[in-house]
């Protein structure tokens, strides 16, 4: 499905260069390694929990790679580590949310162009519409991209966001990762009609359904969507069809709701292996390149682990100091009591 018109000048987004293709693979390898490492760290007690994105590397890296971090802004959920990595967000600061250091993560959302990690399903979709309308008011050509899943598509806020965005012609890319499962509930019991992208027709929003395990298809779709939004044409929906190969979170047990056979059949081809074959076939990378990518990914994951282990808890005073820009007497009083009774100051 593809109802996104070509740009007025008829040109599609430029295809990625060989260097970009290799960078995409390196990013996917880094994300795969960090994701697997994070699950292990949870088992080892380094972090208390994590929401793996195994199998969604192409959808996340391909879309995040299209973002222009000098102007655009991205609104993630709690499962967008691959997007954050592709955007160049500091991974220790990003992963700190999973270490229970600070809910939104420690990265600066303004400089990284990534909104704080959002734990409410579909919670930030409307924020993207408001931010995007702000760009319209400012005469900017920046674009907001908001992430949501097949489960989030059931939330009323997604309807409100798509309707608002279409009415206001807000430059928003709604990037739906349809990974087949909302914890234990499969898409067929979640998404009436079977496609979130198909709903675009009702809002008059152009929509694309792409193979979310094909990083090049995802990148091309996202770049096209950004061109459309930047030109003042209003929002776009991209539905990347992918598969959540792992559990919902490190607390989840998929064995209770799907069999290993179902997992294997549903997951399809591994997005990394597939892209690797493409690069090999095109002669753009060799075994030495892949070995370097793996080694680099392993080294990066190790650095992130060291960074997380070195990360102490934030000072308790931040509980009080960061509630408001202008604090209140009650907070000051509670903060003082806490210091006296807990820190014995």
């Amino acid at each position, binding site marked *: 499905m593809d109802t996104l018109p070509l740009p007025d000048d008829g040109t599609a987004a430029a295809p990625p260069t060989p260097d970009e293709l290799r960078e995409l693979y390196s990013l996917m390898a880094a994300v795969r390694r960090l994701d697997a490492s994070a699950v292990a760290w949870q088992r080892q007690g380094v972090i208390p929990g994590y929401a793996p994105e195994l199998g969604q590397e192409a959808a996340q890296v391909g879309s995040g790679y299209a973002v222009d971090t000098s102007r655009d*802004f991205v609104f993630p959920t709690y499962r967008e580590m691959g997007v954050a990595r592709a955007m160049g967000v500091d991974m220790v600061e990003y992963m700190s949310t999973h270490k229970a250091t*600070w*809910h*939104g993560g*420690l990265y*600066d*959302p*303004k400089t990284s162009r990534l*909104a*704080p990690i959002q734990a*409410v399903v579909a*919670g*930030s*979709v*409307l*924020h*993207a*519409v*408001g*931010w*995007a*309308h*702000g*760009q319209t*008011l*400012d005469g900017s050509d920046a674009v*907001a991209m908001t992430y949501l899943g097949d489960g989030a598509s059931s939330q*009323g*806020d997604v309807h*409100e*966001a798509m*309707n*608002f965005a279409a*009415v206001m012609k807000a430059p928003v890319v709604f990037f739906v990762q349809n990974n087949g499962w909302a914890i234990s509930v499969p898409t067929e019991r979640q998404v009436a009609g079977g496609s979130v992208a198909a709903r675009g027709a009702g809002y008059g929003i152009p929509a694309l359904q792409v193979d979310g395990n094909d990083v090049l298809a995802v990148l091309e779709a996202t770049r096209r969507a950004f061109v459309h939004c930047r030109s003042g044409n209003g929002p776009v929906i991209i539905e990347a069809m992918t598969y959540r190969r792992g559990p919902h979170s490190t607390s989840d047990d998929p064995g209770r709701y799907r069999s290993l056979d179902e997992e294997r059949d549903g997951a399809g081809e591994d997005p990394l292996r597939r892209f690797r074959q493409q690069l090999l076939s095109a002669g753009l990378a060799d075994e030495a390149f892949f070995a370097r990518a793996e080694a680099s990914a392993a080294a990066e994951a190790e650095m992130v682990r060291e960074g997380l282990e070195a990360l102490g808890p934030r000072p308790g005073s*931040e509980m009080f100091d*960061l*509630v*408001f*820009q*202008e604090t*209140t*007497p*009650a907070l000051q009083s509670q903060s003082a009591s806490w210091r006296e009774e807990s820190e014995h100051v």
Partner: protein
Amino acid sequence: MTGFRQAQSPDAKSPEAQSPDAPSPDPEAPAGSHTVTLSMQQALNRALDEVLAENPRAVIFGEDCGRLGGVFRITDGLQAKHGASRVFDTPLAESGILGMSVGLAMAGFHPIPEVQFDGFAYPAINQIVCQMARMNYRSRGALPMPITLRVPSFGGIRAPEHHSESLEALFAHVPGLKVVSPSNPHEAYHLLKYAATRPDPVIFMEPKSRYWQKGDVDLRAADTPDAGPPTGAKVMRHGRHITLVAWGAMVARCLQVADLAAEDGIDVEVLDLRWLKPIDAEALVASVRKTRRAVVVHEAPLTSGLGAEVAQLITQGCFDTLKAPVERVTGFDVPYPSGDLEDEYIPNIDRILFGIQRVLEYRRG
């Protein structure tokens, strides 16, 4: 010429919504005076007009806020004057309005959204409580939420269901929100101008039954020409025998009660709390240390209402000198009733006088 209960506006949500007189573009004031006579609707409109003029990042939006000027006409004329990019209509969805406000604030704007009636804040609760109230915290102060959410609030206009709610205790309980309610046109003008320039989210609860009551507004400063910002509570009438604590529309009622009580020789102090979060505990304690008796009056239901918080703050600060337990005169623990019964529900003069009597007649042991 009060405009009270005049023409009905053709509004889907509120057949009871009232139109004001056409607001006068110029203050109804003699030349050289800083004091003008305005209705609360006019005072709020003027405050918003000035906020838009002074802050180019301020934007006003909501259902019917633009061309119509709002069902209560609080934004009347503002779109024509400041343009449709500063004052605009949204689709009819409160969660969308508040979620959009969060995004606009993240983009550096100062949103002043309107939820048309108190009861319609409920569809936006997730965006208010889980998003607007927490984004500054979640982002470690990187993404402040300078959002002033205007909510026509409380009862008294014989409106349909969901148009007369008192949500202050709910909002005041949410970390990250501030809550304020004006009681008269002067307070409305200054509190809104102050709230709409703050870097934190403020729920601005407008007592809709007072929209068309006129009063003097001193435009120069918040309270007196030399006073600071309108941050705390305010003594609206000084008295020696008992303190009535109220906010919103109940302040005017308590002032009426004070007049009646004075005929019986009871000298009532009326404290307009103004800010329901943060509550001005110092002002509460200062007043009750003097009077040694207090009654708190609100329209919201009794149980877990803000009156309980007020009573605790008074008890904490005045336990040694209190002559009687703090009394609460409030709405009942019932869904807000239909118009025919709302006068039975909202604290009336008799019920407040009974409350005063119970406190005055209290004997220890």
